[in-house]
C-alpha cells in the first residue's frame, strides 16, 4: 500500500501515541472498526523516524505503541496456526480499537470540560460578612483558643514554604539545564563506536547502568535510522535477545538532505 506523505508533524502536537494514532486515522478517513494496520503502522513509523529530538519519557511511550502496532501487523500477516480455527477468530486489532475508542471518548469529554471551564472559571463569590458589618451581636462566650494548635500551624506553614521554594528552584534549575538529545548526535556516536569494522552489542554502547533511559531510547532510534540508510546491520536471534551491530559500509552516512538538516541541526559528518 502506498504511503501517503506525512506532513511535518511535531511530537509536541500530540498528547501521546494514542493521540497521534487518532490523528492518522482521522486524516486518512479510516473506519475505526477496520483499521488497515499495515498502512497505519508505516505512517506511524515514518512519523517516529522524522522526530528530531526526543522528550524523555514521551519517546518510550511512542515506541511501546510502535511495538504494539508491529506486533498486530505480524499477527495479521502470520495467523497463528497452532490455534484451532473455530470460526470465532479473534481480531488482533480489537484491543487497540478499544483503547482508541476509550481515548477518543476521553478527548471528547475533555473538550466538553474545557468549554465548561471557560464559562465557569474564576467564579466570583462574596467575601463572607463579619457579624459586625451585619450588625449582628454575638454572645460573649469563652473562646476556644488552643495555643498548641497555633504553634502547630506555625510549623505547618513554615515547612510548607520550605518545600514550596525548594521544589520551585529544583524545577527551574532542571529546565535551565535540560539537554536535548538528538537522534543525529546519537547516530554519530554509534557510527564512531563501530569505527574500524568491528562488531558491538547494543547493550555495550548503551548499558542499562550508566546511561539514562532517554539515551537508550534515542540510541535505539539512531540504530533504526542507520539501518534504514544501510549503513549498519543488526542481528537479533529472537525477540528480546541481545542485538549485535555491525558496520556495513565505510562510507559515512550520506549528507543530510535539506529537510533533515533543518530538523537535526548542523552536524559535520565529514570529520567522522
Amino acid at each position, binding site marked *: 500500500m502506498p504511503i501517503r506523505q506525512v506532513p511535518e508533524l511535531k511530537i509536541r502536537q500530540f498528547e501521546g501515541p*494514542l493521540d497521534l494514532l487518532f490523528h492518522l486515522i482521522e486524516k486518512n478517513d479510516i473506519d475505526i472498526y477496520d483499521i488497515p494496520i499495515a498502512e497505519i503502522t508505516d505512517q506511524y513509523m515514518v512519523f517516529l523516524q522524522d522526530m528530531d529530538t526526543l522528550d524523555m519519557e514521551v519517546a518510550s511511550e511512542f515506541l511501546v505503541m510502535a511495538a504494539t502496532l508491529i506486533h498486530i501487523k505480524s499477527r495479521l500477516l502470520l495467523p497463528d496456526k497452532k490455534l484451532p480455527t473455530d470460526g470465532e477468530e479473534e481480531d488482533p486489532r480489537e484491543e487497540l480499537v478499544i483503547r482508541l475508542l476509550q481515548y477518543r471518548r*476521553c478527548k471528547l469529554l*475533555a473538550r466538553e*470540560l474545557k468549554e465548561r471551564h471557560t464559562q465557569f472559571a*474564576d467564579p466570583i463569590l462574596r467575601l463572607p460578612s463579619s457579624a459586625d458589618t451585619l450588625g449582628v451581636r454575638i454572645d460573649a462566650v469563652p473562646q476556644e483558643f488552643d495555643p498548641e494548635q497555633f504553634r502547630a500551624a506555625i510549623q505547618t506553614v513554615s515547612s510548607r514554604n520550605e518545600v514550596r521554594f525548594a521544589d520551585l528552584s529544583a524545577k527551574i534549575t532542571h529546565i535551565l539545564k535540560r539537554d536535548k538529545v538528538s537522534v543525529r548526535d546519537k547516530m554519530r556516536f554509534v557510527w564512531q563506536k563501530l569505527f574500524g569494522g568491528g562488531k558491538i552489542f547494543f547493550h555495550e554502547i548503551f548499558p542499562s547502568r550508566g546511561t539514562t533511559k532517554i539515551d537508550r531510547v534515542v540510541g535505539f532510534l539512531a540504530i533504526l535510522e542507520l539501518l534504514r540508510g544501510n549503513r549498519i546491520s543488526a542481528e537479533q536471534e529472537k525477540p528480546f535477545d541481545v542485538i549485535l551491530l555491525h558496520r556495513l559500509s565505510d562510507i559515512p552516512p550520506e549528507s543530510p538532505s535539506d529537510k533533515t538538516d533543518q530538523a537535526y541541526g548542523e552536524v559535520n559528518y565529514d570529520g567522522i
Partner: protein
Amino acid sequence: MTEFENDSLTVQELPAALEGILFAAGDPVSLQRLSDITGVERSVLRQTLTKMSADYENNPWGGLRIRRLDDEYVMCPKPQIKKVLERMFQPKSRPPMSQASYETLAVIAYNQPVTRAQVESVRGVSSDSIIARLLDRGWVEECGTLDAPGRPTLFTTTKQFLLEFGIDSVSELPALELMMYGTIRDLEDSLETAAGSKDTRQLSMEQIAGGLFASGISDADEHLPT
C-alpha cells in the same frame, strides 16, 4: 417531617432566611449547617432551595443565582454578568490549562475514585505531573487507597471542581468507566447504557460523543442562558 424546634422558622419565612444566610456566608454552606441554623429539616430545605434556585434562574431581571455543589449551596452572580463584574475586580490571571490536563481531569471525573495507573491506561502516557497540577489547582484530591497490591492512591474531584466547571454534583456525570473493557461489544454496551438508547449496532464516533453529552453534563447547560 419531624417536629421542629421551638424557634424554627415557618415555611413562609424560610426563603427570605435562606437568602440572607447564603448572602452573609459568602462561601458554600452545607445543608446540615442550614438545618442547624434554621431548625428546618434537610429535605424541606432541599426542596425550598431547588424552588428558589429555579426562580432565580427564571428571573431575567435578577443577577444572582443559587448553585448546588453536592450537599452545599452557594449564592453567586449569574455567568451573564461576569463581564461587568470583571470591570470592578481584576480577575486572577492564571495560566491556561493544557489539553492533557483536561483529558486527565475527564478520566478522573468520570471514573472516580480512580488510580494513577487507570488514568494512564486510558491516556497512554504518564500523568504524574499533570495529576500534581490538578491537585494544586484544588480540582482533584486524594481519597484513600485501593485495596490492591501496592495500595495505590485513589483520586476524586472536589467541590472546587464542581464550582469551576458549573456542575451541581458528580452524580450528574454518568459513570462511564473509561477503562477495562474486554471486547468492543462491552464498550458499545456501556455507551448505549450511558446514552440510554436501545439502538445497538454501529455507533459512530459522533454518536458516542452525542450520547454522552445528551445524558451527561449538558443537562446543566439547559438552564444556563448564554
